[in-house]
């Protein structure tokens, strides 16, 4: 069973896909057409990338009339920062233990 971060890393390892995601992060929601105009790849290719981003939970879809708007769901990035959060918590508590020990070493 792949971990959430595996899926995110795999999804964002592709430069075209990462560029699309970054654009959605920076510029807000957009249609496939608008994204295709600047992606340098065909519309079906952009749609495929968006599908993969959507399955990874990185992109949300909103239908408006005949248009489909895509937006970034940056909350989905949280597993990427979990490692640093977990390790920081681990080391903070080890530092507490170390300080306790240093106090005892005075005696």
């Amino acid at each position, binding site marked *: 069973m792949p*971990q959430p*971060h*595996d899926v995110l*890393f*795999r999804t*964002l*390892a*592709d*430069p075209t896909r*990462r560029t699309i995601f*970054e654009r959605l*992060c*920076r510029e807000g929601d957009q249609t496939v057409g608008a994204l295709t105009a600047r992606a340098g790849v065909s519309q079906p290719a952009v749609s495929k990338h968006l599908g993969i981003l959507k399955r990874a939970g990185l992109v949300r879809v909103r239908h408006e009339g005949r248009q489909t708007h895509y937006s*970034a769901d*940056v*909350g989905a*990035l949280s597993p*990427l*920062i979990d*490692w*640093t959060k977990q*390790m*920081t918590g681990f*080391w*903070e508590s*080890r*530092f507490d*233990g*170390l*300080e*306790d*020990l*240093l106090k005892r*070493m005075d005696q």
Partner: protein
Amino acid sequence: MIEKSAETLSVVVERDIPHPPEKIWRALTQPQLIEEWLMKNDFKPILDHRFNLSADWGTVDCQVRAAEPNKTLSYTWDTKDLRSVVTWTLTPTSTGTLLRMEQTGFRADQQPYYRGAKVGWPRFLETMEQVLARLD
């Protein structure tokens, strides 16, 4: 903390500790003292010495990469799914020691993705950091 200078992720913890570097060095390098604040171990402050840290949740495989008494100590820190290096730096201050721990590395299972996107990662992490900053 997410470092954007490299394709790796870093954890830094830094504290002013009201004890001299020599004393902290002992706590960082004497096995029976290490056990009191970190884990059971067979540590020796000798270059290339391999040792294990063990806890009820598992074992950490380590190897000493640098040991300069009272100044710096560095060892690899590998677990089943993590390849990293832990570096301790001791800087004397007027009140004691500034103790800095930096752990740099990446999850073993993520390595191919980091490598595959080596050029893109620094910029991406920077973007991500900006995005995450807006979330707060």
